[in-house]
């Protein structure tokens, strides 16, 4: 691959701002001495600006989706490790909490969450 081919390959990433410092330096040195590659850079800059502006107009998530996702997350239960028997409809979930309760657990009986225990810093609290 020639220097110009490599430069043309790197220019989009250079314009997007995601090249490593080393690659940016390598490209800048080439651009300093190569008119065709500077012209390629000059074509790429407005295209990149157009793309960023245009992609920003693609609609974001609809407002009502927030509630749907939040409710689905709640229904799916707390993140953590579930163990137990689905056949019996029993499972015990344990998860770490970052708010002073290093460990908490619950028992699920046929999908209903029953608080079981909460291990707090310095002791165990049973519900």
């Amino acid at each position, binding site marked *: 691959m020639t220097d110009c081919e490599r430069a043309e390959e790197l220019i989009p990433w250079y314009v997007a701002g995601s090249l490593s410092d080393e690659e940016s330096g390598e490209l800048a040195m080439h651009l300093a001495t190569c008119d065709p590659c500077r012209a390629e850079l000059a074509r*790429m800059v407005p295209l*990149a600006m157009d793309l960023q502006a245009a992609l920003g107009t693609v609609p974001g998530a609809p407002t009502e989706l927030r509630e749907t996702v939040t409710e689905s997350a709640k229904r799916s239960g707390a993140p953590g490790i579930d163990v137990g028997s689905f056949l019996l409809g029993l499972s015990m979930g344990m998860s770490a909490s970052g708010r002073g309760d290093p460990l908490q657990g619950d028992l699920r009986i046929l999908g209903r969450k029953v608080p079981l225990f909460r291990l707090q810093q310095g002791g165990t609290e049973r519900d």
Partner: protein
Amino acid sequence: MDERDTLARIAAGDEAAFHQFYNAYADRIHRFALTMLRSRHLAEDVVQETLLAVWKGAQRFRGTSKVSTWVFGIARNQALSLLRREARAARDQLPPMVEPDPAIAITRQERVLAALDRLPEEQREVVFLAFYEGLSYRDIASMMEIPEGTVKSRMYHAKRALLEYLR
């Protein structure tokens, strides 16, 4: 708050952290999915499934990549899964991402989106991730589990085509 800290809080079941994460990513994932799939209905499914996967699997983030690379990797897998599920014929009948009203002069942004829409899907997603999300070719290659050269090649062809379409 650092995104990695937010993920750690989500892994601990912190709903407020999940809301914060939703605010940071829902619109971006929707734009990505809409750019890829050209269907609002499917894009909403991708947002929902991706963020639920984050809620349920935040503890699986290993910290070896940027959080955004991890999240968009999940979103991409969800989008590809939906694509497989949907009949290709049905997908091809979906309206383009932007349908300009012929009575209204087309804006530059609409022209750019229309040009983007003409690219193959694998080039569109690289363009989105590079120029809108600022991911490097290394990040994208890692996310897609393809060689870096393939990512650069897709970008090269996308750039050539876009410059031609927008000439």
